[in-house]
């Protein structure tokens, strides 16, 4: 199970990187970043997986039993943070795309050569 999740995560990361590097449309590049992000999050969550254990939500307070019942909650808490930051970064990139489109009326990255030497 964890192998499926972690390999999917790595595959998504590669897919996102390919999108960032090869696409010409700015929106598609932003989507590439989002896919990369999702891949990293999946990898992080799957690293915290413990075989045969359930989500870290408890029914009763039982210190000795709880440790044998749940998966690692720390990566999940980190991913929660990462998702929110990813959302902020995506929103910011999309707004920059919007502004760039206003400037040149084009979404093609090849039409923005002002800073290219």
């Amino acid at each position: 199970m964890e192998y499926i999740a972690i390999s999917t995560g790595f595959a998504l990361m590669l897919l996102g990187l390919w999108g960032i590097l090869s696409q010409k449309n700015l929106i598609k590049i932003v989507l590439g970043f989002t896919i990369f992000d999702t891949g990293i999050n999946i990898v992080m969550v799957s690293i915290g997986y413990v075989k045969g254990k359930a989500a870290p939500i408890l029914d009763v307070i039982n210190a000795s039993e709880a440790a044998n019942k749940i998966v690692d909650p720390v990566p999940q808490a980190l991913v929660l943070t990462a998702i929110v930051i990813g959302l902020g970064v995506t929103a910011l990139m999309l707004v920059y795309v919007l502004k760039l489109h206003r400037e040149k009326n084009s979404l093609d990255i090849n039409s923005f050569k002002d800073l290219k030497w």
Partner: protein
Amino acid sequence: MIKKWIILGILAGMGLIFFDLFSAFRGNETLGKTADYYARHGAEEVGASNIVTAIVVTYRGFDTLGEVTILFLTAAIISFVLKIRQEDILPNRPIRITSELLDSASQVIVPVIFMVGIYIFVNGHLTPGGGFPGGAVIASGVLLMILSNPNFSVSHKVIAWVESISGVGFVLLGVMGILFAGGFLDNRVLGLGDFGKLFSAGIIPFIYSFIGLKVGAELSNILGAISHAQNEKN
């Protein structure tokens, strides 16, 4: 042509790194040391059923405060970038009339979406969920309102008040932790209550409600700014 080969080379290199990481990965049989502590003592010390919430809001609450700040900064930068000068505003932007279906359906669905969002962040310490997903759900309701009525503008006054009150409330509750409990953002200001009940886990439900309102207000502000940016003259 050479570009394609460079891209292929980078992808192959990254693939190699990932494969190396993947082949070294072995599934865990037991929890790590930190996780073991949280699992054993989290429910007892914090009183939240959801251990992830216990970590996010209490053990690493300061981190979450920073996270909320980052979201606030993002919203502020977006508003700054999308600012339109008064003389550039198009008085009557031509808009397409919304379909009857979307218009009627949104009036029914939007209150339900808001209710679901509030439910998610109020129950953050009991169920998978919390302030961030709850706030995002509320913002999706605002998005539906904007889509169904293109002239709808998100009120800056409401957003500013909700955001300020929830931000200040979050910090004040944290400071109360210093005064009445073990330290900044300690949740034992109120009693821990019955495990698994809505009013339990000290101040976690209140902090998560503030976070939910703040995230919802910030995301709505971003959506409103993007929607308003369409009024600019070309």
